[in-house]
């Protein structure tokens, strides 16, 4: 374990202990914040009783669907834009300012059109996350070294061989960065949509607990969201770091 990682763990652990202390001595009221130990116990109870499992399953399906659609869709759109420079020039300013548009504002319209199932939740999450992948794909294509095109031509590679054996591996660090963004924005999109208009899901249960003044459960489920996001990031960090550290050594970068 690196010294930085040890400091990170000490910082988070210390913060949790301070919150625990503040809650236990009553400096923070129990209706405002639950002690971390209570959050954890409530969460454990949710799993032990199996109450949260249908909601968790629904949320994870939505996040997975959004991640897959936004990753593939963003990659394809990025490729298409890169193939048509004039279209790309026209679309770029829109992409640059895309995240200033509050996607959730369109959720009622989507719910009106598609009903209150998982479809509007997934679509909102896809809309929230796809642009990250488009930008990552474009960036990856821009960074592809021209000299590797020459290398492909000296080996008389076909278009497909060049894409498969040179472009794709060279683009992987950037693409993995894009997938990380997609996962993060999918979480935001799905949990946020469930808050607004859903009858099932972790986001809905957090909102429900809030309305019921069930503060320990609300924080316990929030902790679940944090754990899920941290796990997803941890999972994606391993290959991303491996590829990025190798790519960083390339001259001129």
């Amino acid at each position, binding site marked *: 374990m690196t010294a930085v990682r040890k400091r990170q763990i000490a910082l988070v652990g210390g913060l949790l202990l301070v919150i625990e202390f503040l809650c236990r001595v009553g400096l923070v009221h129990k209706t405002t914040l639950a002690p971390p130990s209570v959050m954890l116990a409530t969460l454990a109870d949710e799993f032990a009783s199996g109450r949260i499992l249908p909601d968790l399953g629904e949320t994870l399906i939505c996040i997975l669907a959004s991640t897959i659609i936004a990753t593939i869709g963003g990659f394809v759109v990025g490729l298409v834009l890169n193939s048509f420079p004039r279209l790309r020039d026209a679309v770029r300013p829109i992409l640059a300012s895309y995240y200033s548009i509050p996607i959730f504002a369109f959720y009622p319209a989507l719910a009106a059109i598609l009903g209150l199932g998982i479809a509007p939740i997934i679509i909102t999450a896809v809309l929230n996350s796809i642009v990250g992948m488009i930008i990552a794909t474009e960036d990856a294509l821009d960074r592809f*070294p*021209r*000299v*590797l095109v*020459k*290398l492909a*031509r*000296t*080996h*008389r*590679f076909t278009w497909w*061989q060049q894409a498969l*054996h*040179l472009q794709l*591996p*060279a683009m*992987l660090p950037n693409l993995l960065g894009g997938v990380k963004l997609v996962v993060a924005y999918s979480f935001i999109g799905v949990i946020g949509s469930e808050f607004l208009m859903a009858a099932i899901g972790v986001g809905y249960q957090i909102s429900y607990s809030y309305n019921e003044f069930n503060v320990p459960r609300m924080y316990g489920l929030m902790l679940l969201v944090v754990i899920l996001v941290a796990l997803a990031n941890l999972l994606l960090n391993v290959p991303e770091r491996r*590829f990025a*550290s*190798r*790519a*960083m*050594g*390339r*001259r*001129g970068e």
Partner: protein
Amino acid sequence: MAVPQPVGVLPEIHAECRDLVRNFGGIAGGHVIEAMGPITLEIRRGEFFSVIGPSGCGKSTFMDVLAGLTPPTSGTVTFEGLPVRGTVPDGVGAVFQEDASLPWLNVWDNVAFSLRHDGTDPAEIKRRVDEAVAFMGLRQFAKAYPNQLSGGMRQRTCIARTMVMRPRMILLDEPFAALDAQTRLLMGDELLRLWRETGATVVLITHALDEAVMLSDRIGAMSARPGRFLDIVETGWPRERDSSILARAEVGAVSSRLWGVLREESQKALDQSGRLAAAREGS
């Protein structure tokens, strides 16, 4: 490590350029940039030929056209008697100025990359790659990734990757440009060793006068853009040579003759780039 030669009668002329011209632009009535030419040149089988010239004179364009990476605007290129036009012929290998090592592969896999996509038998790949890695002094670093190597070692990896394909003509576009002077001399020694042992024809593009003089049998001095050969100097060096040749008195004479041609052209190239910058500022 001798290069297998094609069966049949081999011409003394390995590659030939005739009235070669390469322009850029001119699409939809736009401004035409005359990058190079006309060039007429014969490259002899097994020789070490260097091309030297001022910055922006079209040296790299010449290599791209010779390699078949870009088609000429007019004129012809032939390699082993067959026309080259926009496709790299079998038997031609190229090493570029930019780092073309593949960061996701270790040194051994980088060197094996070309062969693996060429349908070569795995046992033969292992034999050739082991040999090339050892030849280029990379055996200790076979499992290292490019980001763990110096610039010189990465370039050696790229040369080894070209070498395993056993090209009959190797084109090198300023492969040592990013290296310090001492490393360049050492890399030059290795290049000469490679040239001797493979028997391949080598065409080196360089902007370094001392490098061209030390390495070459013949040196073509190019004019400012559009690049043409103003003089071709035969050095007369023995085939067995290394960087110690720089101590010989004749080196001065060859350098002096080349610099006599290049000095005025380098000044022209400077003026051209100054005018270009002024035009850009004005537009």
